[in-house]
């Protein structure tokens, strides 16, 4: 008589996922203990990319910290530039000209689109749909071309700085953005048709890795993860910074809390980001783009923090100044770090094949986790 699956047990098999595993999106190691096909326990091991950036900030004048932040969340470097610039501005009581605020918002939203397109491509590959990967990266390359036109770099921009932005919009920028957006709106629908209506993709994501509303709040998740669990927590709405309070956009929220919901949130966010950029072009006033900053910048002693909505969630920089040239302490509240800490609870009892689907849906960037 053949044995049924409940009678066969193979307890205590430990496997290492990573740190060199392509689906872990960076140097993340998961120590997974399996019971047959089912994950018994999981322990994320991080720190392989730890460069001590927070300590390095302490040895530099405020404005020289900006290039390091590019290496935190390298898929959305402008959002990191913005977050640290805001922290420096708050600790030093600097106001930013309105035009610079519009340019910042616009560029950050374009970076968000580029980052979500990477998610779209890599997540599809994780699930097994390789076609979308190529399409999404083709579209992302167009977004990066636009950002290069503006900032001169593809990934590590080092562009937003305390007091404003260094350069105004280049000639023909608006036209270039509009033509890319026209294409993107079409290709996004195409990609969406390839995935959202795809039966295999739906089976792999629907009902998988469910995070309840209470869990999402208790674990401190933010960004698309918490919005995929039915909590409308978006810093751009609840504590608007820059000019977000003047812009009209929706915060996509899905209640299911599974991988599909988190995927849908991001797809919808790409559309909303395009809406924001188009409004910025329309509303942007003329004027200064940079506040006059002293050559030697010494902010008064005190503490300040910024909270911004990066593509991955709530990105917050905490800064302590003692009135000298360098900050005493800079702390990065990285959304991916918090999301990874959910994994041991989230992966308990799931099938080993779903580990990658769940990990991918959190969209972590290890540069930000390890700092």
């Amino acid at each position, binding site marked *: 008589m053949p044995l049924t699956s409940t009678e066969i047990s193979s307890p205590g098999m430990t496997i290492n996922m990573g740190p060199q595993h392509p689906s872990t999106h960076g140097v993340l190691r998961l120590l997974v203990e399996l019971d047959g096909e089912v994950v018994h326990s999981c322990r994320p091991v991080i720190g392989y990319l730890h460069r001590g950036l927070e300590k390095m900030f302490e040895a530099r004048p405020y404005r020289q910290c900006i290039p390091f932040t590019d290496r935190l969340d390298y898929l959305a470097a402008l959002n990191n530039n913005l977050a640290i610039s805001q922290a420096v501005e708050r600790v030093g009581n600097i106001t930013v000209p309105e035009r610079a605020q519009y340019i910042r918002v616009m560029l950050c939203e374009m970076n968000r689109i580029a980052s979500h397109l990477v998610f779209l491509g890599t997540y599809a590959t994780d699930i097994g749909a390789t076609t979308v990967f190529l399409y999404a990266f083709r579209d992302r390359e167009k977004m990066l071309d636009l950002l290069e036109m503006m900032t001169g770099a593809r990934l590590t921009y080092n562009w937003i700085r305390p007091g404003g932005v260094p350069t105004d919009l280049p000639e023909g920028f608006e036209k270039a953005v509009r033509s890319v957006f026209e294409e993107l709106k079409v290709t996004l629908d195409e990609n969406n048709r390839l995935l959202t209506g795809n039966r295999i993709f739906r089976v792999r994501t629907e009902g998988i890795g469910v995070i309840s509303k209470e869990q999402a709040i208790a674990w*401190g998740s933010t960004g698309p993860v918490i919005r995929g669990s039915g909590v409308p927590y978006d810093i751009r709405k609840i504590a608007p910074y820059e000019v977000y309070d003047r812009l009209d956009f929706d915060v996509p929220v899905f209640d299911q809390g599974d991988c599909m919901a988190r995927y849908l949130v991001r797809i919808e966010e790409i559309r909303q980001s395009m809406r924001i950029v188009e409004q910025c072009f329309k509303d942007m006033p003329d004027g200064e783009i940079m506040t006059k900053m002293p050559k030697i910048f010494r902010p008064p002693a005190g503490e300040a923090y910024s909270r911004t909505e990066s593509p991955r969630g709530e990105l917050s920089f*905490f800064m302590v100044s003692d009135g000298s040239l360098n900050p005493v302490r800079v702390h990065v509240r990285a959304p991916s770090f918090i999301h990874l*800490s959910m994994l041991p609870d989230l992966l308990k009892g799931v099938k080993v094949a779903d580990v990658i689907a769940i990990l991918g849906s959190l969209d972590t960037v290890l540069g930000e986790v390890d700092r």
Partner: protein
Amino acid sequence: MPTPEAISKLQQLFSEDQLKVDWAGKELILNVESDSFKNLCTFLRRDTDFDCDFLADITSWDTGVSFPLWYRFHSMSLNHTVIIRTNVSRDNPIIATVTDIWPGADWLERECFDMYGIDFEGHPFQGDLAQMRILMPKDWDGFPFRKDYEPVFSGDPLHGPQERN
């Protein structure tokens, strides 16, 4: 923004030398002594006027005299931010854990331990140095973000304990 009634409730529960209430714009900053810290956290989580269900951030820094601790909370239902500041001494850096109230505090507390050596009493891994370490290698020597930390190169860039010859 917490109501004046809520604030007065706080001031009734905690004496003036234990808790100092401060404002930064619309944000409430509570400076609390470390022995009342856990009670305050429990109160903020349970009380319906505060309802701090979301722990956003924990961090610390080194002033040379003590390690201030900085906690940022958010209330999803009331949409306000509350910041708790407390202090632990450099000689005996120990504070109660909040992982039993907010499970998300787990890794944030481990990071504070890893970098500053602050002990979180009641943390699931408390006392287990190798398990508490999170970003540094588990056999690392010392706490690198302290201002008096002196890195000593062991000769092996990949591996841990720095041998002091």
